[in-house]
Each structure stands twice: as structure tokens, then as C-alpha cells.
């Protein structure tokens, strides 16, 4: 096993590919060539901890050791990017508030219940942001609001439930939003206020696990921003199908600005809003 002072193991192209195959099969995550540096560094402590000399041995451990499935989860957790922040892509959020929400409210008025899903919510910034947009909205006073955040990373979800965030997560948050929605902590950190935490719940979900996804209810709106980019095309198609199935008729899917459903699905209608473009289940 590598000891102190020994060179850090280097990941060959073939080893990266073998590991990438395992990750992709497990959750659809694509470990691209350009992520090799990060993969080498972030997995190096795992090799140290397991007493493995190189990434070929790590691959064999993941494949055949009884602890392999747990370790695979750890590895994916270390490699999947978790970076996100509050009030990300404000133009899209404006469009959501001004155009998507009124429509969703109109449909949900009989039950006075609104369900949103933040798929691939990472450390929770997006579902909390959605709660911040919904909770103080006069037209929703007295409604049952349900914002579900799901991710495949246990670590990210632990962070999300804690609801404490640093300056990077708050970089697009205005002073007004900060004062309204957060309680200050020490060291420049802030905690989401209780009334915005209340409608948000979290769950562990691998988006390619169809059996687990079948447990989900129907949603009025699904946010899945900057998640599909980490999947291979086939997985993207499967995940988009899942979104379609989980949306109520008339419900909307909002993707990141660099993403679209081109070549993925023709089942959605494209809806051009004033400030954005969303996909609606007919």
C-alpha cells in the first residue's frame, strides 16, 4: 500500500475508463477524461484508507470486495460535483414566479396543494430557494406546500438538512433576501430560517433507479438544473422520461440554461415564456 512520502497513484486512461464504466452503471454519472486530475486527488485518500496501491486495485475492490458497493457510493459522492448556490439563474426564477407559478396555482386551486421537485438538489440550495419564493407569496397563503429535494449523495443531503451555508452558496443572494430568509451564524455562515425549512424535505434518490423513482408522487413543477450534463445520452433520455411520468398533466420541467431536451424527448411541449423556456407535459 502507498505509504507517507510515496508518490500519489496516477490514474491511467484505461483505469479511468474502467472506473467510469462502474460509475455510469451505478448512477449514470460520466467520469470524463478531463476529470482525471480531480478523480486522482479525491480518490487518493480512499486508496490510502483501503490500503490499495493503485487504481487498478481500487477497480478490483469496487468490483469484487464485499465492501465494494458501499465504496462505490463513497467514490461517486466524492466525484459528482455538488456546487450550487441560492437564487441561481435569477431570470429563470423570475419567469417561474411570474408565469409558471400562476398557471400551476390555477390548476392546483381545488386541492390548495402545490408539489415541487428539485431533482439532483445537491446540498439543498435549490429547494430552499424554491421555498423562499413560495412561502411569502400571498396567493399561496394557507396552501400546503411541498418541496422535495433529492440527490444520490448522502453527504450532500446531510449538509442540506443542516441548512447552514457559507459565502459561496450565498454569492447571488441579495442583502434583502439574506435578511428575509437567513439567520446569521459565525464565520460568515448563515442558516435558512425555520419557515423556509418547513416545506422542504429531502430524500436519497438515484435518478436511474426506476423502482425507487416509482415511489415518487406527481409534481406540479420539476427543477432539474445542471444535472443532466453529467449523464450519458441514454441515461438522460431515461431520466427525462421519468420526469415526464412524475409530472402532473400541465406540469412543467425547468432545466439549466445550458441544457435542453433536443434529441432526448419529443413528448414535452416547449413553452416560450417572456424570460425563459420551459418544457410542459401536455
Amino acid at each position: 500500500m502507498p505509504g507517507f512520502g510515496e508518490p500519489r497513484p496516477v490514474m491511467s486512461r484505461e483505469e479511468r475508463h474502467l472506473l467510469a464504466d462502474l460509475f455510469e452503471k451505478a448512477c449514470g454519472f460520466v467520469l470524463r477524461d478531463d476529470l482525471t486530475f480531480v478523480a486522482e486527488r479525491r480518490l487518493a485518500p480512499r486508496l490510502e484508507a483501503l490500503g490499495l496501491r493503485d487504481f487498478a486495485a481500487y477497480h478490483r475492490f469496487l468490483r469484487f470486495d464485499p465492501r465494494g458497493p458501499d465504496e462505490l457510493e463513497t467514490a461517486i459522492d466524492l466525484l459528482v460535483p455538488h456546487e450550487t448556490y441560492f437564487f441561481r439563474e435569477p431570470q429563470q426564477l423570475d419567469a417561474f414566479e411570474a408565469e409558471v407559478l400562476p398557471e400551476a396555482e390555477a390548476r392546483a386551486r381545488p386541492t390548495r396543494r402545490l408539489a415541487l421537485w428539485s431533482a439532483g438538489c445537491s446540498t439543498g440550495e435549490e429547494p430552499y430557494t424554491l421555498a423562499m419564493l413560495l412561502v411569502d407569496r400571498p396567493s399561496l397563503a394557507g396552501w400546503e406546500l411541498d418541496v422535495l429535494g433529492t440527490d444520490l449523495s448522502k453527504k450532500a443531503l446531510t449538509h442540506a438538512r443542516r441548512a447552514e451555508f457559507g459565502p459561496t452558496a450565498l454569492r447571488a443572494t441579495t442583502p434583502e433576501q439574506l435578511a428575509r430568509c437567513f439567520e446569521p451564524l459565525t464565520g460568515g455562515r448563515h442558516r435558512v430560517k425555520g419557515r423556509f425549512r418547513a416545506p422542504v424535505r429531502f430524500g436519497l434518490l438515484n435518478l436511474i433507479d426506476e423502482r425507487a423513482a416509482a415511489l415518487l408522487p406527481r409534481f406540479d413543477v420539476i427543477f432539474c438544473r445542471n444535472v443532466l450534463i453529467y449523464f450519458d445520452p441514454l441515461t438522460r433520455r431515461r431520466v427525462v422520461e421519468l420526469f415526464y411520468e412524475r409530472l402532473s398533466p400541465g406540469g412543467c420541467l425547468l432545466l439549466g440554461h445550458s441544457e435542453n431536451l433536443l434529441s432526448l424527448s419529443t413528448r414535452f411541449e416547449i413553452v416560450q415564456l417572456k424570460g425563459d423556456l420551459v418544457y410542459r407535459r401536455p
Partner: protein
Amino acid sequence: MTWLVADADAESRYRALDALPAGPAAAPRLVEALGDPSWRVRRLAANRLAQVEPTPLVVSQLVALLGRRGETGARNAAASVLAQMGEGARAAVAGLLEHVDPDQRKFAADILGELGKEEAVPGLVAALDDGDGNVRAAAAEALGRIGGGVARRSLEGLLRAGDPLLRVCALEGLARLRAPPPLPALAPLLDDPLTRPSAFRLLGQVAHPTASRRAVLALGKTTTRDAALLAFASCEGPLAGEVEAEISVALKPVADAARWLEAALTSGDLERRRGALVLARAVRNPSLALAMARAAGPDGLAEQAVEALVPLGLAGAQALLDGGPALADLPGEARAVASEAILALAGPSLVERLTALLGAGDQEWAELAARALGRTGARSAVAPLAQLFDDDALAVHAYRALVALAGSWPRDVEAALEGRVQGALQPHVLRAWAEVVGAPARALLSRALHDERDDVRAAAVEASVFVSEAPALVRAGLMDESPRVRRAAARALAALPTAEALPLLSHALVDLDATVLALACQVAPRHPHPDALGRLAELARHADASVALSALDALAAQGALPVELLLRALEHPGPEVHRRAFELGADRLELVPRAQVALAHPRWEVRAAAARLLAVSGTASSLEALKDALEREGDDVARELLGQAVQAVAKR
């Protein structure tokens, strides 16, 4: 409410196009769809057309589309398809350089640049004299994409052109080709504000002290500093020490140099960040450490960022660790860079900061802190590490770090562990204790072998190699009811003397658990004995891929792997076994025909292993199979290996 379904008809057209079968029969519909008013439909058509064979009819239809004035979408879509069609489209597109419509001449130049074929150079050189400025610029850009001696000389000639746009295009083309012109031709362009950024980009590629001095001097002036950054972004490899010293001197009197560098390091522009990392490495300002880590970004600058951070020395590591919330908030690549630098720079003066990081509430940074504490070599690192055994994730790092520190501070480490071996036992404490104190740990390990937790028993067996009477402990481990303990015992066999290990190994090689069997196979080459070979040969046929792989490895390591077993391994259901068989049998002629067949295996790693075997053992008769496989290979790694194999076999 202002809902507007974008275009319901477009949706149906999209679906109809998407439903067209693949193949040339769809081409007319696809070409027609390039003129569709919906960009989604056009894009789908373009993507599909790029996969169609470029017959003269399809190419001529696409070329005709380029001429449809007022239909910008259709023209752009046609140009994009032609640019992807390769040699089949070149002649027809080159003919357009003579067209009366300047738009079409420009399209032609753009497409020829994308195609990148040197045959297009004469036409493009002629187009440098086109009456239309846009066509001239497009031709210059295209030459910069294609390259070659003629293109390069033409671009150098343009550096004296009256039109500044052409001069910029020429500079950019030469920079793209990494073909800087003679310095006297470049020098005047460094002073012209219009050409300055491109000229400095090219200046960075001139490997001469005069060029680097020009760039360094430009750092001192506000008007040229940003352009000079581009010069450092385009230089290859680290700068010479004296150039770094000159940079430091040049930036010293600049009042806002640190702020300027920080902004460049954290900008969204890859080129600026690359240049800023070169400068940051030269000025060695620890206050820039966090920004240097951030400069790694997601686009391939991580190695360079580490190389820039490490020369900062301890002050750099201190600055990173003092980052507080900013450190906690670093994104993935920046974290990897900062971790690498902190580990490389760990020293006694960091102990306090690393200890603080242990308690900062971030699991990943806590693990880094534990690993780094072990590398500090500091006596004061022992106490904080000894507190980590209650944390499952940190305990293993604490164990390794303490064992490393015991090399310098054995009494301190022993004292720190002593209190922890009195009560309930913890696996990593046991390991550390046995490794640090050696023989006196025997009694504790014996006690641990009776612990109700199997992870404690497994740790005791693994740690037994550090005490006397290890064989007795390993034997007890091999008889344990938990496979986890038996696996630990199988691993521990490696460290026993062969005479004592052999009877235990033969026991492990008939264990009922496949994971124990696999480990026993892995240990077998450490204790070679003819009696074990028969059992290993049996295990090489085991249904569990892990066992079969390990047995094949063990036999190969002992020079006792018959070709029959390799051929048998190719019948195994596990593709890993096939791959390993090709790797281990690369010198066996009997495997050559099987490797040729395996070039069509559904798994890329098997195809890759077969290609590697054929590269060293293939015969002339393998060449066609390799070429065919290369032609149809879709996997990058397998493709690379197939390419190497084709070259190797072709030389025979």
C-alpha cells in the same frame, strides 16, 4: 398569464423528422428540413445529415442552400453539415470561392477551414486578395486552422497588411498554429492597440529572452498589462528562474498588482487564468494562494495550479488553511488542488491550523487534515490524531498518520494510544498499537480475537504480523465463523514465514467463501510451492470471476500458467477474466486467433486487451482484423490501442 406554446406545428415536424429511418433515403427530407423555420427542427436535421454519406447529390443540395439569401438559418445549418462531411464535400465547397456572391465565398472559406485539408490552401491564399473584406478575413482564419508551410508564409505576409482586421486574423492564425513570425515582424504589432492582444499571445510562443523581456516590461504598464498576461498564458512549460525574478521585480511597484492578479486568477476566462497562474508562481505572494487554487477551474488547469502553489512553501499552506469559509467553499477542482498543496507542504508549523481544520465540520477537509498531520513529522500532531479514533471515517487516517509519526516520536505515540487500548477495543487502535509497540501487543491481540465484533477480530488478525506467535493468531482467524476475519487472516498470510504460512495457505485455498479464496490466491505467490499449483489451477476455473482472476495471476507469477488454462479462461462468463487472460498470455501464439475474434467482443476492455496482445504477438495475418476493428471501434481507449497495434503489426 402569457403562455405561448412556441409552435405546435414545429413539434409535429420535429417528431416526424425524428421518426425518419437512418440511411441515405432520408437525405432529401433532411436537406429540406434545414430550411425549417424552427431552429430545433433545423438542428435535428443537421445532426442527422452529418451522419449521411456525402454523395454528390446531397453535397450539391447543401451547396445550393448556401445561396438562399434571406434564409440565414438554412444557410448556417447547411454550412455546419458541409463542415462535418469531410473530404467528400471539399471540392464542391472550394468551387464556391469563385462565386459571385461574397456571402457564399465567405461560407466556402469558413467551411474549408473547418475541413482542415491542406489541398484547400491555394484557393484560400488566392482569396486573401478577394475584393470583400469579410472573405479575406475568413480566408486568413481558415489558413490558420489548416496550417502547413504555405499557409504560414501567407499569414506572415499578412502581418504587413493595411487592413488591421487582416493583421489580427493573421496573428491569431499563427498563434493557433504555434508558428511565431520573426521578432522584427511581430514587434511593431505589440504597440498597436488593435493588434496588441493577439501579438502578445504570439510573443509568448517565442522562446527567446528578448521576447520574454518584452512581455515582462509590458506588465509594468496599465495599458499593456492585460495583453502581456496573454503572452504568459501561451508560453509552454514553466518559466526560467531569471524570468520569474524579472516578473516579480516588474510587478513590485504596481500598486494594485495583487488585486489585478487575483481578478485574473478567478476570472471565467481560461486563458487569463492560465497566464495569471504563471505570474502568480513567479511573484510568490501567499495572499493569492486561495485564488490560485480557484484558478484550477473545471477546465484542466489543476496541475498548473498545484505547480504554482507549492513554491509558496509553508506560507502558502498557511494562507490556504487560514482561508476559513473561503476554504470550506472551494469547489471540487480547487479543493483537489489545495489538498495536494497542503499535503506537499505539511510541516510542524501547520499543526495548529490542521487541528483546527479537523473540527471545522467538513468531513473531506477533516480527512485531509488527518493525513497532513501525519506528514508534519511534528510531536504536537500526535495528541490531536489520537482523538480521531471515535470517528469511523477519520480513524483509518489517524492510524496511518500515527504510525508515520511513531518513526520520530515512538514514546509519544505509544503513550497516546495506551489509554485507548484499555477499554472497548477499536480496530484501528489495535492496528496502530501493534504496529507501534510490536511484540508487547501480543496479549491485547489475543484478547481481541475473542471480541464479539468481527471487525475487531479481523483487525487483531491483520495486526498479528507485528507480534511474535503470529501463525497461531492467523490460524485462529482462518477458523473464525466470519468471512471478514478469515479474509484478514488470508491477507496476513503474506507476512508469515513460508514454512509456517504453507499449511495455513492450503487451508485458506479450500475456504468456502469466494472472497477468502481470492485473497488466498493473491497471497500464494509469496509462498510458492508445487503442491499449491494444482489447487490454483482448479481455482482458475472457479465460477467467481474474482477467484478465477486471482488464481490466474498467482499461477502466472509462479511461471506455472499453462496455455490450456488461458484458453479455458476465455470461456469464463466474466469479461474481466477474458481481459486478464489476454494480458497474461500476451506471449502465447495460441491466443492470437482468439484475440482476433475478441476484437469484436461487446466489452471495450476485452477488445483493448486483445489489441494489446496482438500488438506484441500478432502476425501479418492479424493486420486485416485489426484494421477492420479499428474502422468500427467506437471507444476512444480501445481505438488508441488498436491504432498502436495496427502500427506495430504493420512493421513486422
